[in-house]
């Protein structure tokens, strides 16, 4: 009798375990599906490119100086659109409004992201020393944004810009910090 009981119970206990496991899985699947949404491929690739933001008249930028410009971007934050502000460094080298290729100081206009590629602190321009210095861990960049000393793994990140009828339009972008390669942030 006891043996029969055990074997039947063995079967039932197995069944009970399976049942609990099934229930747990059935609950976990939609729950995880919901929670892991930000990782899904579709939501990643869906993050559109930020549009260009108006940075003012080019003529207003004094030649030869670095100027901190605030860009306003409308960001989609779930159910609302929020206005986010980002600061970028802009320098116009000559009086000519001709845009050079977005790049590191090739004459003309340079636009650099103020975000330090080391760990993300905003970088400051020090005119007395003619260099950019990051206040967090002492990263130093030349007047062209090139990394000269300190922990940052690469140069300051240039941003895309356009001249439209005498106005400067800059496209804000976020790049991955802490790596040598410049990779836009997608997730």
């Amino acid at each position, binding site marked *: 009798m006891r043996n029969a*009981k*055990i074997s039947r*119970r*063995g079967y*039932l*206990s197995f*069944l*009970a*375990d399976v*049942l*609990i496991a*099934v*229930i747990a899985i*059935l*609950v976990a699947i*939609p*729950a995880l*599906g*919901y*929670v892991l*949404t930000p990782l*899904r491929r579709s*939501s990643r690739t869906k993050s559109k490119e*930020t*549009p*260009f*933001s*108006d940075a003012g008249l080019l003529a207003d930028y004094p030649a030869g100086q670095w100027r901190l410009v605030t860009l*306003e*971007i*409308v960001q989609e934050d*779930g*159910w*609302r659109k929020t*206005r986010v502000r980002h600061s970028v460094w802009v320098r116009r080298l000559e009086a000519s409004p001709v845009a050079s290729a977005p790049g590191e100081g090739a004459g003309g206009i340079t636009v650099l992201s103020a975000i330090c590629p080391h760990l993300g602190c905003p970088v400051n321009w020090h005119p007395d020393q003619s260099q950019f210095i990051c206040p967090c861990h002492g990263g130093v960049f030349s007047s062209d944004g090139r990394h000269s000393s300190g922990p940052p793994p690469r140069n300051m990140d240039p941003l895309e810009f356009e001249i*439209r009828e005498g106005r400067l*339009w800059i496209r804000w972008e976020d790049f991955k910090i802490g790596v040598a390669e410049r990779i836009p942030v997608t997730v």
Partner: protein
Amino acid sequence: MESHEEQPPRAGFWEERTGWTMLKQVLFLEPLTGGSRWAAAFGSLLLFAFLLQVVTGILLTMSYAPSVETAWPSVKYIQEDVPLGSFIRALHHWGSSAMVLLLLVHLIQVFVWGAYKKPRELTWMIGVLLLFCTLGLAFTGYLLPWDQKAYWATKVGLGIISTTPGIGDGLRALLQGGPTMGNLTLTRFFSIHAFLLPGLLILLVIVHLYLFRRHGVTPSWWQSAEQLKATEEPFWPKQLLKDGVLALVFLMGLGWWANHFAAPLEAQADPSQAFEARPEWYFMFLFRLLRYFEGPYEIVGTFVLPALFFLILFFWPFLDRSPHRDPRRRPLAMTLLAGGTIGLVGLTIFAVATDVRMKEPVQAQAPSPKPEPAGPIQRADVAKIYNGACAACHGVDGSGQQIRKGMPTIPDFTSLAWQMSQTDLEINHRIIDGNEPLMPAYRDKLSQPQILALSVYVRAFAVGLIEAPPSPKPAPPSQAPVAAQMASPQIYRTYCLACHDADGRGQTARKAMPELPDFTLEKWQLAHTDPEIKKSILQGKGKFMLAMKDKLSEADTDQMVAFVRSFRTGKQLILVQPPSSPTEHFPAQPAVVPIPKVSPAPEPAELATRTRAATALYRQYCLICHGTTGSGSDMRAAMPNIPDFTDRSWQTATGTPQLLNSILDGKGTLMPAFRGRVNEDQARDLAAYIRAFGPPPTAPSELPANDFERRFRELQNQWNELQKQLKALPPPAKSSRSQ
């Protein structure tokens, strides 16, 4: 304690550090006298339902924001944009109803078993406290979407609470978070719903379970002591198996239900809009009950009876002192149980069945036959979109009257005459493209199906009974909500043209309205004085002419009287609106709002321009005879040969060159030539427009479920066809665009 262990105890790594086998013994191998029972599974089923609510609730709080401005948009976001959001929300919503039901089942089961008798009285009382917690969770959770239903139901609920003698007002203020219902109420309710009550509930469940285990499961009354001992077996696996099966069935059932029925979401809470508040179904009995207590006796219904009921429930183990658990030996208890259950259930059913709403919340009545034959074409979900995106200016009733002072040209959707001056395509286009600077473009704000649905929705305002709180009509006509800024032709086009015609002759409508005057007749003009005409306009005339006094001010009417006079030349034809030079759709502005890249030929802008031009042209030159749908039905009595654009055979039989020819050079004796009034490109665009009226290329395979679906699909086909046709045409020459 007997221990039937399956595996040899793993007195190894884990056992030494955690002693888990003892835990397993205590938790899972508790002996159940009388064996495992299905009836005993309902308690754990209730617990499972609660745990499910916790899981789905936590998921929801990842996207929900409890404040007056953000609550509803965030819930809408969960419902529409978050993957699986609507499913999780539906699980949570229906799960709460399920919990109430399971709660009742568990209560009844425990009651019948007499499981509240000594020494288990405390277990029962904790259970009643758990009941309170559950109802509290339901009440507080209900407010969180901050939609109309939530707001008004909570307002009433708090009102009921305030009738508690003595502490009522204080209690309400405490729950409200302030003197009135508002943001603080919402944040409080959220905290209570998501933190306070769940925490309390979990604590009470632990105590409940501890007490339950301490006394052991209540033995079944039909087994003798020996039988009970003989059939004793441990909780695991058999009872757990039964619990598990019920839980699985419940999960599948709830999952199917949630997949099938979405959780509702009404329009955003608006304290200024009247709304018939209703609680959730499990409070409907109270809702009904309160009808029977009026005036000074109201408190009987709101406080005395419920308090009495809960006190009796709570102290029941001490009221029923009979030692028998056998229900057959407790006739009084059973009678009370039966009576109470039947009473509550019956009252609930009665309440729900007889619930007569004075006004259907945001659902239109079927418009009477004009201008389109249509059954009820509203759907509550479209109403939500409308209320969120349009009602701020256009009003919930479509009249736009609340802002007409500041925006005088806003149309009145309830105006039949306005409706009859618009084709469906034009309405659709207007929503997509806006009417800068007054009406924003919704191209980027709403999806295409949403816009199409709204176009259908706008139509039904014609006999507008959409939840219109009787708005006080302004008494002095000088406050009548129509701008004097509308030029006479514009007013005429909007309000008179449908019946009186472009030329004032009124030929179109005379078949239906034999008394309709012909403005061009000298005889008629002489027979009527100015004050008479004015009176007809303001007060209406005869069976068909509508009173315009709500739409036209005195000054407007005087203007229109003069306009009517001007028809006597017999040569006035109202088509002078130039194809409007569209204001730039994408004006350069400081980029606070992202502006799409200005590429050389912005396709959507050009298409939109041409669509706008085509709709304007159609409205002025064609609509009168060919109708808002292109069927020409209105005019067919007078013009038997007028084509029906919606007829497939006509569309296939008529080539585009023929269409162009008819437009530019006229056709037969009745259709005029429009060369000189439209150029070739415009004629081509018009031809595309006419093509769009045609039926879809393939006949629909199944009959759409209801009128809304049919109209939606028609409009969708029309719109797609129009865009396709316009795209296929060569782009217009530069000159025409700048007209």
